[in-house]
Protein backbone atom coordinates (compact mmCIF):
# COMPACT_ATOMS: atom_id res chain seq x y z
CA UNK A 1 0.00 0.00 0.00
CA UNK A 2 1.47 3.36 -0.90
CA UNK A 3 1.49 6.26 1.50
CA UNK A 4 -1.44 8.06 0.05
CA UNK A 5 -3.62 4.97 0.04
CA UNK A 6 -2.64 4.25 3.63
CA UNK A 7 -3.55 7.76 4.61
CA UNK A 8 -6.87 7.41 2.80
CA UNK A 9 -7.80 4.26 4.66
CA UNK A 10 -6.87 5.77 8.00
CA UNK A 11 -8.74 9.00 7.48
CA UNK A 12 -12.42 9.17 8.44
CA UNK A 13 -14.72 7.82 5.74
CA UNK A 14 -17.18 10.66 6.42
CA UNK A 15 -15.74 14.08 7.13
CA UNK A 16 -18.27 16.88 7.54
CA UNK A 17 -17.07 20.38 8.40
CA UNK A 18 -19.19 23.32 9.43
CA UNK A 19 -21.99 22.71 7.00
CA UNK A 20 -25.07 24.85 6.83
CA UNK A 21 -28.41 24.20 5.18
CA UNK A 22 -31.03 26.90 4.90
CA UNK A 23 -34.40 26.24 3.26
CA UNK A 24 -36.40 29.06 1.74
CA UNK A 25 -38.46 30.61 4.46
CA UNK A 26 -35.81 30.90 5.70
CA UNK A 27 -35.62 27.75 7.82
CA UNK A 28 -32.20 26.95 9.19
CA UNK A 29 -32.14 23.15 9.02
CA UNK A 30 -28.43 22.72 9.76
CA UNK A 31 -26.07 25.24 11.31
CA UNK A 32 -22.34 24.91 11.84
CA UNK A 33 -22.68 21.15 11.82
CA UNK A 34 -19.62 18.91 11.90
CA UNK A 35 -18.94 15.23 12.44
CA UNK A 36 -16.48 12.56 11.38
CA UNK A 37 -17.26 8.86 11.08
CA UNK A 38 -14.61 6.14 10.99
CA UNK A 39 -14.66 3.09 8.77
CA UNK A 40 -16.88 0.36 10.17
CA UNK A 41 -18.41 2.69 12.74
CA UNK A 42 -22.12 2.75 13.51
CA UNK A 43 -23.35 6.23 14.35
CA UNK A 44 -26.88 6.75 15.61
CA UNK A 45 -28.47 10.21 15.36
CA UNK A 46 -31.29 11.18 17.65
CA UNK A 47 -33.13 14.43 18.19
CA UNK A 48 -36.61 15.97 18.26
CA UNK A 49 -38.76 16.29 15.16
CA UNK A 50 -37.55 19.06 12.87
CA UNK A 51 -34.05 19.10 14.34
CA UNK A 52 -32.46 18.39 10.94
CA UNK A 53 -31.69 14.66 11.13
CA UNK A 54 -33.12 13.79 7.72
CA UNK A 55 -31.65 16.91 6.17
CA UNK A 56 -28.20 15.89 7.40
CA UNK A 57 -28.47 12.40 5.88
CA UNK A 58 -29.74 13.85 2.62
CA UNK A 59 -26.82 16.28 2.47
CA UNK A 60 -24.37 13.39 2.83
CA UNK A 61 -25.33 11.89 -0.55
CA UNK A 62 -26.15 15.16 -2.24
CA UNK A 63 -29.94 14.89 -2.28
CA UNK A 64 -29.80 18.36 -0.72
CA UNK A 65 -27.21 20.99 -1.61
CA UNK A 66 -25.38 22.50 1.32
CA UNK A 67 -25.12 26.27 1.60
CA UNK A 68 -21.77 26.36 3.39
CA UNK A 69 -19.06 24.03 4.67
CA UNK A 70 -17.51 20.90 3.18
CA UNK A 71 -18.36 17.23 2.98
CA UNK A 72 -15.78 14.59 2.10
CA UNK A 73 -16.79 10.98 1.60
CA UNK A 74 -14.03 8.38 1.37
CA UNK A 75 -11.62 11.04 0.18
CA UNK A 76 -13.92 12.54 -2.47
CA UNK A 77 -15.24 16.01 -1.97
CA UNK A 78 -18.95 16.56 -2.55
CA UNK A 79 -19.18 19.69 -4.68
CA UNK A 80 -20.68 20.99 -7.90
CA UNK A 81 -18.67 18.44 -9.86
CA UNK A 82 -21.27 16.04 -11.23
CA UNK A 83 -18.81 13.14 -11.52
CA UNK A 84 -17.88 13.47 -7.85
CA UNK A 85 -21.49 13.56 -6.84
CA UNK A 86 -22.26 10.38 -8.77
CA UNK A 87 -19.15 8.68 -7.41
CA UNK A 88 -20.20 9.52 -3.87
CA UNK A 89 -23.74 8.33 -4.40
CA UNK A 90 -22.38 5.01 -5.56
CA UNK A 91 -20.44 4.66 -2.33
CA UNK A 92 -23.50 5.39 -0.20
CA UNK A 93 -26.66 3.32 0.12
CA UNK A 94 -29.77 4.97 1.53
CA UNK A 95 -32.87 3.48 3.11
CA UNK A 96 -35.93 5.70 3.46
CA UNK A 97 -38.75 5.75 5.97
CA UNK A 98 -41.27 5.25 3.16
CA UNK A 99 -39.26 2.50 1.37
CA UNK A 100 -39.56 4.21 -2.05
CA UNK A 101 -39.44 0.91 -3.92
CA UNK A 102 -40.08 1.14 -7.66
CA UNK A 103 -43.71 -0.04 -7.90
CA UNK A 104 -43.54 -0.99 -11.59
CA UNK A 105 -40.67 -3.44 -11.06
CA UNK A 106 -40.59 -6.81 -9.35
CA UNK A 107 -38.50 -7.39 -6.26
CA UNK A 108 -35.71 -8.74 -8.46
CA UNK A 109 -36.13 -5.83 -10.87
CA UNK A 110 -35.76 -3.36 -8.00
CA UNK A 111 -32.53 -4.93 -6.80
CA UNK A 112 -31.19 -5.41 -10.35
CA UNK A 113 -31.87 -1.96 -11.73
CA UNK A 114 -28.84 0.02 -10.60
CA UNK A 115 -26.50 -2.93 -11.13
CA UNK A 116 -27.61 -3.00 -14.76
CA UNK A 117 -27.69 0.74 -15.39
CA UNK A 118 -24.86 1.98 -13.20
CA UNK A 119 -22.47 -0.96 -12.95
CA UNK A 120 -23.40 -2.21 -16.44
CA UNK A 121 -23.66 -5.79 -15.27
CA UNK A 122 -25.28 -8.36 -17.53
CA UNK A 123 -28.80 -9.52 -16.69
CA UNK A 124 -27.48 -12.84 -15.42
CA UNK A 125 -24.70 -11.40 -13.30
CA UNK A 126 -27.05 -8.88 -11.74
CA UNK A 127 -29.74 -11.44 -10.99
CA UNK A 128 -27.19 -13.77 -9.42
CA UNK A 129 -25.96 -11.11 -7.01
CA UNK A 130 -29.51 -9.90 -6.32
CA UNK A 131 -30.58 -13.39 -5.32
CA UNK A 132 -27.72 -13.60 -2.84
CA UNK A 133 -28.75 -10.29 -1.32
CA UNK A 134 -32.41 -11.28 -1.16
CA UNK A 135 -31.38 -14.43 0.66
CA UNK A 136 -29.32 -12.33 3.05
CA UNK A 137 -32.39 -10.24 3.96
CA UNK A 138 -34.58 -13.36 4.19
CA UNK A 139 -36.63 -12.90 1.01
CA UNK A 140 -35.20 -15.63 -1.21
CA UNK A 141 -38.60 -16.79 -2.51
CA UNK A 142 -40.14 -13.38 -3.21
CA UNK A 143 -38.19 -12.23 -6.27
CA UNK A 144 -41.13 -12.29 -8.70
CA UNK A 145 -43.52 -10.33 -6.51
CA UNK A 146 -44.32 -6.68 -6.93
CA UNK A 147 -43.81 -4.27 -4.02
CA UNK A 148 -47.54 -3.88 -3.35
CA UNK A 149 -47.76 -7.63 -2.79
CA UNK A 150 -45.37 -7.44 0.17
CA UNK A 151 -45.78 -6.43 3.81
CA UNK A 152 -44.11 -3.24 5.01
CA UNK A 153 -41.32 -5.15 6.69
CA UNK A 154 -40.66 -7.15 3.55
CA UNK A 155 -40.66 -4.01 1.42
CA UNK A 156 -38.13 -2.34 3.67
CA UNK A 157 -35.88 -5.41 3.49
CA UNK A 158 -36.08 -5.29 -0.32
CA UNK A 159 -35.09 -1.63 -0.10
CA UNK A 160 -32.07 -2.59 1.99
CA UNK A 161 -31.10 -5.27 -0.53
CA UNK A 162 -31.52 -2.74 -3.34
CA UNK A 163 -29.14 -0.33 -1.61
CA UNK A 164 -26.63 -3.11 -0.85
CA UNK A 165 -26.62 -4.15 -4.50
CA UNK A 166 -24.33 -1.22 -5.28
CA UNK A 167 -21.84 -2.59 -2.73
CA UNK A 168 -21.81 0.69 -0.83
CA UNK A 169 -19.18 1.51 1.76
CA UNK A 170 -21.68 3.46 3.83
CA UNK A 171 -25.36 2.86 4.59
CA UNK A 172 -27.72 5.63 5.67
CA UNK A 173 -30.98 4.73 7.42
CA UNK A 174 -33.60 7.45 7.88
CA UNK A 175 -36.14 6.13 10.40
CA UNK A 176 -36.22 2.86 8.51
CA UNK A 177 -38.71 1.30 10.93
CA UNK A 178 -40.97 4.27 11.71
CA UNK A 179 -43.58 3.42 9.08
CA UNK A 180 -43.82 -0.23 10.11
CA UNK A 181 -46.34 -2.10 12.22
CA UNK A 182 -44.74 -3.06 15.54
CA UNK A 183 -44.56 -6.76 14.70
CA UNK A 184 -42.45 -6.03 11.61
CA UNK A 185 -39.89 -3.75 13.19
CA UNK A 186 -37.85 -6.67 14.52
CA UNK A 187 -37.21 -8.29 11.15
CA UNK A 188 -35.81 -5.06 9.71
CA UNK A 189 -33.69 -4.32 12.79
CA UNK A 190 -32.29 -7.86 12.55
CA UNK A 191 -31.03 -7.17 9.05
CA UNK A 192 -29.49 -3.89 10.17
CA UNK A 193 -27.89 -5.56 13.18
CA UNK A 194 -26.30 -8.17 10.93
CA UNK A 195 -24.97 -5.46 8.62
CA UNK A 196 -23.35 -3.69 11.56
CA UNK A 197 -21.76 -6.96 12.70
CA UNK A 198 -20.36 -7.48 9.20
CA UNK A 199 -18.49 -4.20 9.55
CA UNK A 200 -20.61 -1.83 7.44
CA UNK A 201 -20.22 1.87 8.17
CA UNK A 202 -23.69 3.06 9.13
CA UNK A 203 -25.39 6.35 9.97
CA UNK A 204 -28.77 5.61 11.49
CA UNK A 205 -31.58 7.99 12.40
CA UNK A 206 -33.93 6.10 14.69
CA UNK A 207 -36.29 6.29 17.62
CA UNK A 208 -35.49 2.70 18.61
CA UNK A 209 -33.39 3.41 21.67
CA UNK A 210 -32.88 -0.27 22.51
CA UNK A 211 -31.42 -0.81 19.07
CA UNK A 212 -29.31 2.34 19.35
CA UNK A 213 -27.83 1.26 22.67
CA UNK A 214 -27.12 -2.26 21.49
CA UNK A 215 -25.74 -1.72 17.98
CA UNK A 216 -24.21 1.73 17.81
CA UNK A 217 -20.67 2.74 18.60
CA UNK A 218 -21.55 6.38 19.02
CA UNK A 219 -24.67 8.46 19.56
CA UNK A 220 -25.18 12.00 18.36
CA UNK A 221 -27.91 14.23 19.72
CA UNK A 222 -28.95 17.22 17.65
CA UNK A 223 -31.45 20.01 18.19
CA UNK A 224 -32.52 22.94 16.02
CA UNK A 225 -29.97 22.08 13.35
CA UNK A 226 -27.00 21.98 15.70
CA UNK A 227 -24.97 19.17 17.18
CA UNK A 228 -25.66 19.31 20.91
CA UNK A 229 -23.56 16.39 22.05
CA UNK A 230 -22.10 13.12 20.92
CA UNK A 231 -20.39 10.30 22.72
CA UNK A 232 -19.86 6.58 23.03
CA UNK A 233 -23.17 4.81 23.30
CA UNK A 234 -22.37 3.22 26.65
CA UNK A 235 -21.64 6.49 28.41
CA UNK A 236 -24.08 8.62 26.42
CA UNK A 237 -27.21 7.16 27.95
CA UNK A 238 -25.73 6.95 31.44
CA UNK A 239 -24.20 10.42 31.61
CA UNK A 240 -25.67 12.88 29.15
CA UNK A 241 -23.80 16.14 29.68
CA UNK A 242 -26.31 18.70 28.45
CA UNK A 243 -29.58 19.57 30.08
CA UNK A 244 -31.29 19.57 26.68
CA UNK A 245 -30.12 15.98 26.06
CA UNK A 246 -31.34 14.81 29.45
CA UNK A 247 -34.68 16.41 28.85
CA UNK A 248 -35.02 14.69 25.46
CA UNK A 249 -33.97 11.31 26.80
CA UNK A 250 -36.45 11.58 29.65
CA UNK A 251 -39.23 12.25 27.20
CA UNK A 252 -38.58 9.25 25.02
CA UNK A 253 -37.26 6.60 27.43
Amino acid sequence: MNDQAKQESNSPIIDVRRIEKIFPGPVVALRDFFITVERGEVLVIIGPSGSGKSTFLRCLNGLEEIDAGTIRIDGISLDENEANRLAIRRKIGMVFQSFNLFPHLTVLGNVDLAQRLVQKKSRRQAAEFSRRLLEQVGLADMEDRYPHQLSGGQQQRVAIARALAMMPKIMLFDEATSALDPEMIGEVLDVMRQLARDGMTMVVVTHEMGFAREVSDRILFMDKGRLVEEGESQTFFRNPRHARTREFLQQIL
Partner: protein
Amino acid sequence: MKWSPRVENRLVDVAKFVVVLTACAYLLLRGSAGIGYNWQWQTIPSYLLTVDGGHLRPGPLLRGLLVTLEITFFSLLLSALIGLGVALLRLSGSFVGRLLARVYLETIRNTPLLVQIFFLYFVMAPILDIGRFATGVLALSLFEGAYASEIIRAGIVAVPIGQWEAAHALGLRSFDTYRAVIIPQAMRRILPPLTSQAVSLLKDSALVSTIAVYELTMEGRTIIAETFLTFEVWFTVAAIYLVVALFLSFVADQAGKYLRIS
Protein backbone atom coordinates in the same frame (compact mmCIF):
# COMPACT_ATOMS: atom_id res chain seq x y z
CA MET B 1 -97.42 -6.85 -17.74
CA LYS B 2 -95.70 -4.77 -15.05
CA TRP B 3 -92.36 -2.97 -15.59
CA SER B 4 -90.04 -2.13 -12.77
CA PRO B 5 -89.69 1.65 -12.21
CA ARG B 6 -86.12 1.63 -13.58
CA VAL B 7 -87.09 -0.04 -16.84
CA GLU B 8 -90.12 2.25 -17.07
CA ASN B 9 -87.87 5.31 -16.78
CA ARG B 10 -85.65 3.93 -19.47
CA LEU B 11 -88.55 3.39 -21.80
CA VAL B 12 -89.77 6.91 -21.27
CA ASP B 13 -86.27 8.21 -22.05
CA VAL B 14 -86.07 6.18 -25.24
CA ALA B 15 -89.49 7.40 -26.29
CA LYS B 16 -88.50 11.04 -25.76
CA PHE B 17 -85.31 10.46 -27.75
CA VAL B 18 -87.21 8.94 -30.67
CA VAL B 19 -89.68 11.83 -30.67
CA VAL B 20 -86.87 14.42 -30.81
CA LEU B 21 -85.08 12.50 -33.54
CA THR B 22 -88.22 12.17 -35.65
CA ALA B 23 -88.92 15.87 -35.25
CA CYS B 24 -85.40 16.70 -36.49
CA ALA B 25 -85.74 14.39 -39.47
CA TYR B 26 -89.14 15.87 -40.29
CA LEU B 27 -87.83 19.43 -40.17
CA LEU B 28 -84.89 18.49 -42.33
CA LEU B 29 -87.04 16.77 -44.93
CA ARG B 30 -89.55 19.59 -45.03
CA GLY B 31 -86.75 22.13 -45.27
CA SER B 32 -85.04 20.33 -48.09
CA ALA B 33 -88.35 19.85 -49.90
CA GLY B 34 -88.92 23.59 -49.41
CA ILE B 35 -85.75 24.40 -51.32
CA GLY B 36 -86.54 21.70 -53.84
CA TYR B 37 -83.71 19.37 -52.83
CA ASN B 38 -83.65 16.12 -54.75
CA TRP B 39 -82.38 13.30 -52.47
CA GLN B 40 -80.28 10.66 -54.27
CA TRP B 41 -79.02 8.29 -51.62
CA GLN B 42 -78.73 5.41 -54.12
CA THR B 43 -75.44 6.72 -55.61
CA ILE B 44 -73.66 7.13 -52.25
CA PRO B 45 -72.57 3.45 -51.77
CA SER B 46 -70.51 3.60 -54.95
CA TYR B 47 -68.39 6.36 -53.40
CA LEU B 48 -67.58 4.01 -50.56
CA LEU B 49 -67.05 0.80 -52.49
CA THR B 50 -66.99 0.20 -56.23
CA VAL B 51 -67.09 -3.04 -58.15
CA ASP B 52 -64.52 -2.98 -60.88
CA GLY B 53 -64.08 -6.02 -63.11
CA GLY B 54 -65.42 -8.37 -60.44
CA HIS B 55 -63.10 -6.88 -57.80
CA LEU B 56 -64.22 -4.82 -54.86
CA ARG B 57 -62.36 -1.49 -54.81
CA PRO B 58 -62.53 1.25 -52.20
CA GLY B 59 -64.31 4.32 -53.49
CA PRO B 60 -63.02 7.89 -52.98
CA LEU B 61 -64.58 8.28 -49.53
CA LEU B 62 -62.94 5.13 -48.17
CA ARG B 63 -59.63 6.09 -49.77
CA GLY B 64 -60.01 9.48 -48.09
CA LEU B 65 -60.73 7.80 -44.78
CA LEU B 66 -57.53 5.81 -45.18
CA VAL B 67 -55.52 8.99 -45.69
CA THR B 68 -57.27 10.56 -42.70
CA LEU B 69 -56.30 7.57 -40.57
CA GLU B 70 -52.71 7.77 -41.82
CA ILE B 71 -52.52 11.46 -40.96
CA THR B 72 -54.00 10.80 -37.54
CA PHE B 73 -51.61 7.92 -36.85
CA PHE B 74 -48.41 9.70 -37.86
CA SER B 75 -49.47 12.91 -36.15
CA LEU B 76 -50.25 11.02 -32.96
CA LEU B 77 -46.76 9.49 -32.91
CA LEU B 78 -45.00 12.72 -33.78
CA SER B 79 -47.06 14.81 -31.37
CA ALA B 80 -46.25 12.37 -28.55
CA LEU B 81 -42.54 12.76 -29.32
CA ILE B 82 -42.79 16.54 -29.49
CA GLY B 83 -44.87 16.50 -26.31
CA LEU B 84 -42.27 14.43 -24.48
CA GLY B 85 -39.42 16.66 -25.62
CA VAL B 86 -41.24 19.86 -24.65
CA ALA B 87 -42.33 18.42 -21.30
CA LEU B 88 -38.72 17.48 -20.48
CA LEU B 89 -37.52 20.93 -21.55
CA ARG B 90 -40.07 22.56 -19.27
CA LEU B 91 -38.94 20.40 -16.35
CA SER B 92 -35.25 20.86 -17.09
CA GLY B 93 -32.87 23.04 -15.11
CA SER B 94 -31.89 24.98 -18.23
CA PHE B 95 -33.34 28.46 -18.43
CA VAL B 96 -32.99 28.59 -22.22
CA GLY B 97 -34.74 25.22 -22.51
CA ARG B 98 -37.67 26.35 -20.38
CA LEU B 99 -37.93 29.61 -22.30
CA LEU B 100 -37.98 27.82 -25.66
CA ALA B 101 -40.72 25.48 -24.46
CA ARG B 102 -42.72 28.45 -23.18
CA VAL B 103 -42.46 30.34 -26.47
CA TYR B 104 -43.54 27.25 -28.42
CA LEU B 105 -46.53 26.58 -26.16
CA GLU B 106 -47.76 30.17 -26.15
CA THR B 107 -47.41 30.50 -29.92
CA ILE B 108 -49.28 27.30 -30.64
CA ARG B 109 -52.05 27.88 -28.14
CA ASN B 110 -52.65 31.49 -29.12
CA THR B 111 -52.86 31.22 -32.90
CA PRO B 112 -55.58 29.46 -34.91
CA LEU B 113 -54.71 25.98 -36.18
CA LEU B 114 -55.83 27.02 -39.66
CA VAL B 115 -53.30 29.85 -39.67
CA GLN B 116 -50.59 27.48 -38.48
CA ILE B 117 -51.40 25.14 -41.34
CA PHE B 118 -51.26 27.96 -43.90
CA PHE B 119 -48.07 29.31 -42.37
CA LEU B 120 -46.38 25.93 -42.65
CA TYR B 121 -47.75 25.32 -46.12
CA PHE B 122 -47.00 28.67 -47.70
CA VAL B 123 -43.90 29.70 -45.72
CA MET B 124 -42.13 26.67 -44.33
CA ALA B 125 -42.95 23.96 -46.86
CA PRO B 126 -41.16 25.67 -49.78
CA ILE B 127 -38.15 26.40 -47.55
CA LEU B 128 -37.96 22.90 -46.14
CA ASP B 129 -39.05 21.37 -49.42
CA ILE B 130 -41.71 19.06 -47.97
CA GLY B 131 -44.93 17.82 -49.55
CA ARG B 132 -48.53 18.54 -48.64
CA PHE B 133 -49.08 15.35 -46.69
CA ALA B 134 -45.92 15.89 -44.61
CA THR B 135 -46.85 19.53 -44.07
CA GLY B 136 -50.28 18.50 -42.83
CA VAL B 137 -48.83 15.93 -40.44
CA LEU B 138 -46.25 18.42 -39.19
CA ALA B 139 -48.84 21.13 -38.57
CA LEU B 140 -51.16 18.81 -36.68
CA SER B 141 -48.26 17.34 -34.68
CA LEU B 142 -46.98 20.73 -33.63
CA PHE B 143 -50.50 21.73 -32.63
CA GLU B 144 -51.38 18.60 -30.68
CA GLY B 145 -47.81 18.36 -29.33
CA ALA B 146 -48.49 21.45 -27.24
CA TYR B 147 -51.42 19.73 -25.55
CA ALA B 148 -49.59 16.40 -25.34
CA SER B 149 -46.72 18.11 -23.52
CA GLU B 150 -49.13 19.31 -20.82
CA ILE B 151 -50.48 15.79 -20.41
CA ILE B 152 -46.99 14.31 -20.23
CA ARG B 153 -45.73 16.97 -17.85
CA ALA B 154 -48.66 16.40 -15.52
CA GLY B 155 -47.98 12.65 -15.61
CA ILE B 156 -44.31 13.12 -14.76
CA VAL B 157 -44.97 15.62 -11.97
CA ALA B 158 -47.45 13.20 -10.39
CA VAL B 159 -44.74 10.59 -9.77
CA PRO B 160 -43.88 10.85 -6.05
CA ILE B 161 -40.67 12.71 -5.21
CA GLY B 162 -39.43 9.65 -3.31
CA GLN B 163 -39.02 7.81 -6.60
CA TRP B 164 -36.57 10.44 -7.84
CA GLU B 165 -34.69 10.33 -4.57
CA ALA B 166 -34.44 6.55 -4.55
CA ALA B 167 -33.10 6.58 -8.11
CA HIS B 168 -30.63 9.36 -7.41
CA ALA B 169 -29.48 7.72 -4.19
CA LEU B 170 -28.63 4.61 -6.23
CA GLY B 171 -26.42 6.75 -8.44
CA LEU B 172 -28.61 6.70 -11.55
CA ARG B 173 -28.03 9.51 -14.03
CA SER B 174 -30.92 11.81 -14.94
CA PHE B 175 -31.45 10.06 -18.28
CA ASP B 176 -31.68 6.60 -16.68
CA THR B 177 -33.87 7.95 -13.91
CA TYR B 178 -36.36 9.23 -16.47
CA ARG B 179 -36.18 6.22 -18.73
CA ALA B 180 -36.26 3.40 -16.19
CA VAL B 181 -38.06 4.88 -13.18
CA ILE B 182 -40.13 7.98 -13.90
CA ILE B 183 -41.55 7.57 -17.41
CA PRO B 184 -42.79 3.99 -16.90
CA GLN B 185 -44.72 5.14 -13.84
CA ALA B 186 -45.97 8.31 -15.52
CA MET B 187 -47.24 6.23 -18.47
CA ARG B 188 -50.36 5.00 -16.73
CA ARG B 189 -51.42 8.59 -16.17
CA ILE B 190 -50.32 9.73 -19.61
CA LEU B 191 -51.67 7.04 -21.91
CA PRO B 192 -55.45 7.40 -21.43
CA PRO B 193 -55.61 11.16 -22.10
CA LEU B 194 -53.06 10.78 -24.89
CA THR B 195 -55.28 8.21 -26.57
CA SER B 196 -58.13 10.68 -26.37
CA GLN B 197 -55.89 13.09 -28.26
CA ALA B 198 -56.28 10.69 -31.18
CA VAL B 199 -59.93 11.75 -31.36
CA SER B 200 -58.99 15.44 -31.49
CA LEU B 201 -56.41 14.71 -34.16
CA LEU B 202 -58.93 12.78 -36.22
CA LYS B 203 -61.31 15.72 -36.17
CA ASP B 204 -58.66 18.41 -36.66
CA SER B 205 -57.21 16.51 -39.61
CA ALA B 206 -60.21 17.73 -41.63
CA LEU B 207 -58.50 21.12 -41.69
CA VAL B 208 -55.64 19.90 -43.85
CA SER B 209 -58.15 19.57 -46.69
CA THR B 210 -57.53 23.31 -47.02
CA ILE B 211 -54.06 22.58 -48.41
CA ALA B 212 -55.46 19.98 -50.81
CA VAL B 213 -54.46 16.82 -49.00
CA TYR B 214 -56.92 14.23 -50.26
CA GLU B 215 -58.26 12.98 -46.97
CA LEU B 216 -61.90 12.28 -46.13
CA THR B 217 -63.16 15.87 -46.07
CA MET B 218 -61.33 16.79 -49.28
CA GLU B 219 -62.72 13.76 -51.08
CA GLY B 220 -66.17 14.75 -49.90
CA ARG B 221 -65.75 18.27 -51.25
CA THR B 222 -64.52 16.92 -54.58
CA ILE B 223 -67.49 14.61 -55.00
CA ILE B 224 -69.89 17.43 -54.20
CA ALA B 225 -68.21 19.70 -56.71
CA GLU B 226 -68.80 17.08 -59.38
CA THR B 227 -72.25 15.79 -58.41
CA PHE B 228 -73.98 18.42 -56.22
CA LEU B 229 -74.98 15.66 -53.77
CA THR B 230 -74.29 18.13 -50.95
CA PHE B 231 -76.61 16.77 -48.26
CA GLU B 232 -75.94 13.08 -48.84
CA VAL B 233 -72.16 13.43 -48.92
CA TRP B 234 -71.86 15.63 -45.82
CA PHE B 235 -74.18 13.27 -43.94
CA THR B 236 -71.99 10.35 -44.97
CA VAL B 237 -68.71 12.08 -44.20
CA ALA B 238 -69.97 13.17 -40.76
CA ALA B 239 -71.20 9.65 -40.05
CA ILE B 240 -67.80 8.18 -40.93
CA TYR B 241 -66.00 10.62 -38.60
CA LEU B 242 -68.53 9.85 -35.89
CA VAL B 243 -68.08 6.09 -36.14
CA VAL B 244 -64.28 6.24 -36.15
CA ALA B 245 -64.17 8.79 -33.30
CA LEU B 246 -66.53 6.70 -31.18
CA PHE B 247 -64.37 3.68 -31.83
CA LEU B 248 -61.20 5.54 -30.81
CA SER B 249 -62.90 6.84 -27.65
CA PHE B 250 -63.88 3.30 -26.81
CA VAL B 251 -60.28 2.12 -27.25
CA ALA B 252 -59.04 5.00 -25.08
CA ASP B 253 -61.54 4.10 -22.36
CA GLN B 254 -60.52 0.46 -22.41
CA ALA B 255 -56.83 1.38 -22.29
CA GLY B 256 -57.54 3.60 -19.31
CA LYS B 257 -59.43 0.86 -17.48
CA TYR B 258 -56.72 -1.67 -18.23
CA LEU B 259 -53.97 0.62 -16.93
CA ARG B 260 -55.89 1.41 -13.78
CA ILE B 261 -56.32 -2.27 -12.96
CA SER B 262 -52.78 -3.46 -13.66
